[in-house]
Each structure stands twice: as structure tokens, then as C-alpha cells.
């Protein structure tokens, strides 16, 4: 009798009876886009995670090798619908660096304004996603309502809401419209008041805070080593912002603070990562106000767009910029013709999502949307 039981017992020992893989995605309410997260769960706890991306791989970088430099700008908008302005900016900046030209002051400030508007609307989109991920639709709609005013600013500035196509190699597409400074200051002032309602809804609610507090701790070393960048990194104690520490365009001429939490503790949780982005929105408002003043001071007839040669001299160069989601880099290899030889995009989310295993370690299933909402997924730029 005992002999007959041996294979059964052996099989039982081999079986992982209490752990199972749950596969989230590619179509799943928590994944804002097409990607899969395989989770190995032990009861309610996560023991292993394996993100799978690539459903949206379009060969973006290969496609650019076929186009002349000017016609790549609309393509950069399509990398990420929330951060279209920063990506076009980054691309134009990189090409300008390869050309070795210095663009007019006014264009630099207009780009700062456009970038910060883009940062605020991207963060608001993220806030909306956090709301739905935690199961509250009111935050979603209120954040989207605020975002709409900034999209209206985009329309006034460049004629389109999201795929802006605004920066150009050597400047920007068009000058600011006559009442733009008035509109933008009104919107920003309105936003600074209206934002508090959403903050009351989240930060004064013990449910929201307890959902985010104390889960998914990341240390400073982990962040730096795994390549987690952006607000998520600054919440864990890494004091680094490309706008301040590696300034591009005119960011060294405006005053702003970079919100960093846990500088001494060197470890941060999901709530810290959340708080960084909220404060960043207020700092962006400050930057916008200063930059609008500078634009007004420069005057109406100042140049905003330089004429640039269509052919870029051979060489390699790269531009680096603080995206709303982290550090984004474009690495350009030019060969002296009017088309790039190679254009590499370093998307912040691509690296951030590879950290999801470290972020999901030991948390509960119900926490996963809250934790992964902080990397603000956007698949267009992840898969490229």
C-alpha cells in the first residue's frame, strides 16, 4: 500500500500547490495600454512579477532612418500622447546640438512654457489614472476637467490638443498669439486654486492615503541601480533633476525647486512617489509664470525661429531632457545627409517598467494598481 502512494506523494511535493500565476493583460483595466504583467501570487501576496511589453512595437527608430529631419517631428508626438511636447522638444534639441546652433532666447522660453504645460497635463492624466486604479472615478473626472484647460492652452498655442507638432529645429512653429500670456496666467491661477479640491479628496482621505502608504519601499541604491527615474526616483531620495542639474535651453535662468522626499532616509514608498508629482505641478506653475514674464520682456518682434540647414553634419550626439515621467534621451547618429543614420530614443517608462518586479515584491494583489500607477505607463514610448 505504501508503495502505491509513493508516486502520489512525490508528485505532491513537486507541485506548487499554493502559488499560482495570474496574468494581467494585455487587455486589463489596470494596464493603461497594451502590456502584460505576469504575477505569481501566494494567497494575496506577490512573490514574483514578470512584465511583458512589445505589443506596440512599430519600429519607430527604424522608420526615422527613412525620413528627412523635419518630417520626424510629427512622429515624435506619437511617441507618447501625454508628453508629445517634451519629445518633440527633445528631438529638436538633439538635432540643434548636432547642427551646433543656438536658438533664439524667445524660442527657448516658449519651449519652457510649452514643456511645463505638457508636464502639468501629463501629471493630471496620471492623477486621473491613480484615481481609477484605486477605485474612485471622481478623481479621474476632476483631474480630466483640470487637464482640459491646459489642452485648451495647447490649442491656442499651436492649434492641436495633444499631438502638438510645435517645436521646430531652430525654434518653434509660430509665435505666441497676442493674448496668450493673459490666457496662460489665468489658467495657471485657476488651476492652483482648483487643484486643492483634488488634494482634499486624496490626501485628506484616510482610505486613499492608507492604500498608498507603506507599500512597495524602494531604496535609493535600488532606484539608481535599476534605472528608475523621474518623480518615482525623487520620492525615494535621489536628489536629481535634469532641469536643474544638467540644464538645457533656459532652465538655468528660471527659479524653481525640485521636490525631493526622504533625502536622509534614502527609502520611499508609493505615497512619497505620489506626493512628488503633486508638488511638481505647483512648481511647474511657478516656472510658467516666470517664463511668461521673460517672454513679455523679450518683446514681440524678437526672432522665434532660426533658419537651419537641411543637412546635418556627420557625428554622434545626444540630448537629455526631463520628461514628465523621467529621464528621456535621444541619441542621434548623423551621416551628413538629410536623414538620420540612427535615432535612439531612451524612454523613461521602458526602464521604469522593468523595475516592476522590484516594486511588486511582497505587496498584495490589491496594491499592484496603486504601485504601478506611479510609473505612469504609456506604451507608445515604451515599445516605440
Amino acid at each position, binding site marked *: 500500500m505504501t508503495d502505491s502512494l509513493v508516486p502520489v506523494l512525490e508528485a505532491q511535493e513537486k507541485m506548487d500547490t499554493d502559488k499560482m500565476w495570474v496574468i494581467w493583460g494585455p487587455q486589463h483595466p489596470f494596464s493603461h495600454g497594451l502590456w502584460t504583467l505576469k504575477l505569481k501570487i501566494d494567497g494575496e501576496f506577490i512573490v514574483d512579477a514578470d512584465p511583458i*511589453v*512589445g505589443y506596440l*512595437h512599430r*519600429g519607430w527608430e527604424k522608420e526615422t532612418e527613412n525620413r528627412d529631419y523635419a518630417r520626424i517631428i510629427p512622429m515624435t508626438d506619437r511617441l507618447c500622447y501625454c508628453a508629445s511636447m517634451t519629445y518633440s522638444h527633445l528631438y529638436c534639441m538633439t538635432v540643434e546640438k548636432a547642427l551646433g546652433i543656438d536658438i533664439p532666447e524667445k524660442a527657448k522660453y516658449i519651449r519652457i512654457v510649452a514643456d511645463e504645460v505638457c508636464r502639468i497635463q501629463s501629471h493630471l492624466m496620471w492623477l486621473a489614472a491613480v484615481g481609477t486604479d484605486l477605485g474612485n472615478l471622481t478623481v479621474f473626472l476632476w483631474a480630466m476637467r483640470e487637464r482640459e484647460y491646459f489642452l485648451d492652452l495647447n490649442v491656442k498655442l499651436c492649434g492641436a490638443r495633444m499631438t502638438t507638432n510645435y517645436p521646430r529645429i531652430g525654434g518653434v512653429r509660430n509665435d505666441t498669439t497676442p493674448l496668450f500670456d493673459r490666457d496662460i496666467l489665468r489658467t495657471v491661477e485657476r488651476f492652483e486654486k482648483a487643484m486643492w479640491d483634488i488634494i482634499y479628496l486624496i490626501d485628506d482621505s484616510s482610505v486613499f492615503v492608507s492604500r498608498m502608504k507603506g507599500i512597495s519601499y524602494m531604496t535609493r541604491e535600488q532606484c539608481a541601480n535599476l534605472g528608475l527615474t523621474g518623480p518615482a526616483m525623487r520620492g525615494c531620495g535621489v536628489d*536629481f533633476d535634469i532641469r536643474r*542639474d544638467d540644464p538645457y535651453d533656459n532652465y538655468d535662468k528660471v527659479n524653481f525647486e525640485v521636490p525631493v522626499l526622504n533625502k536622509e532616509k534614502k527609502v520611499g514608498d508609493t505615497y512619497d512617489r505620489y506626493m512628488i508629482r503633486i508638488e511638481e505641478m505647483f512648481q511647474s506653475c511657478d516656472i510658467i509664470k516666470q517664463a511668461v514674464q521673460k517672454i513679455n520682456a523679450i518683446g514681440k518682434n524678437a526672432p522665434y525661429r532660426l533658419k537651419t540647414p537641411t543637412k546635418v553634419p556627420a557625428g554622434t550626439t545626444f540630448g537629455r531632457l526631463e520628461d514628465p515621467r523621467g*529621464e528621456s534621451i535621444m541619441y542621434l547618429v548623423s551621416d551628413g545627409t538629410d536623414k538620420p543614420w540612427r535615432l*535612439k530614443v531612451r524612454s523613461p517608462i521602458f*526602464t521604469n517598467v*522593468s523595475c516592476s518586479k522590484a516594486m511588486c515584491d511582497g505587496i498584495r494583489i490589491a496594491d499592484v494598481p496603486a504601485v504601478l500607477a506611479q510609473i505612469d505607463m504609456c506604451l507608445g514610448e515604451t515599445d516605440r
Partner: protein
Amino acid sequence: MADVIQAPTVDQVSEILKREFPDISILCVEERRVKVKCPREISHDVCVFIHDNLTFEHCSVVTGVDYEDHMMVVYLIANYYNGLMIDMDVDVPNDDPHVASVSDIWGGANWHERETWELFGIVFDNHPRLERLLTPDTYEFFPFRKSYKLRSQE
């Protein structure tokens, strides 16, 4: 080895690298940017040195460039203390596209190396999991090589 220097300046970086590794050449030095060229045999040692002694904690990009006659692996390595970046180029011959993986030094390089492998066919030795990431597993070619033509290029 030399002492740990937190937040080195551009001149310090080029000086120390030249002193420690006579094989590598400093291509150009700009404001907050150092561009070096490194033979592939010592690339891993250089990376360890940069990480441990020069406190470059963050590897932003690992990518490949196909120059048709040879390939190149580009490492962009960043310092969080002063925003310095090292642009390290490693030439790789077409017939033997191997280079040492740096994902044991910087965990963030893991996916970048996987991506570079699947798009350019540059093999990263000792990589923990060199599988296809963005493209389907069934692909047997490397789509970002110049020898792979798009439909419009043919």
C-alpha cells in the same frame, strides 16, 4: 585601484580614465559630457571602475549602432551627484558581435541589452536572460541592422 571620487569633474574623469586604462581614448570633452572610446575586451572593467570609483550610479542607455562595416555599442552613463554623463563607445566587429554584459553592474541595463540584442544581434555575454523583448519570439533576423531593408527602401 584609486579612491572613490564622488561627483568628479569632466577633467578629473578624463584624467583618471586615461591613467587607469591606457587603452581607452578620450574622444571629446564638453560641458558635463565626456566621450570615450573603449576596446571591447576591457569594457566591463571600465564600467566597474566607473560605477565603483567614479560613482556613476545610473546607466541611462545601452544601445547599438550599425555602421555596416562594424557595429558599435553605446553606453550612456550618468552621475546623479553633478549631472555628468559619459558616452562610452565600444566597437564590435560584424563577424563576432560579442560584448560583456553590464547588467550585473547596473540592473537597469538589463532590458536595454535585451533590446539591443534582439534589434542588432549584438550578444551580451553573461546576460541573465537574453530573450526577445519587443519583437515576437519567432523572429530570426535582427530588424534594426542596415542589411534589413524596409519595404519602402527596397
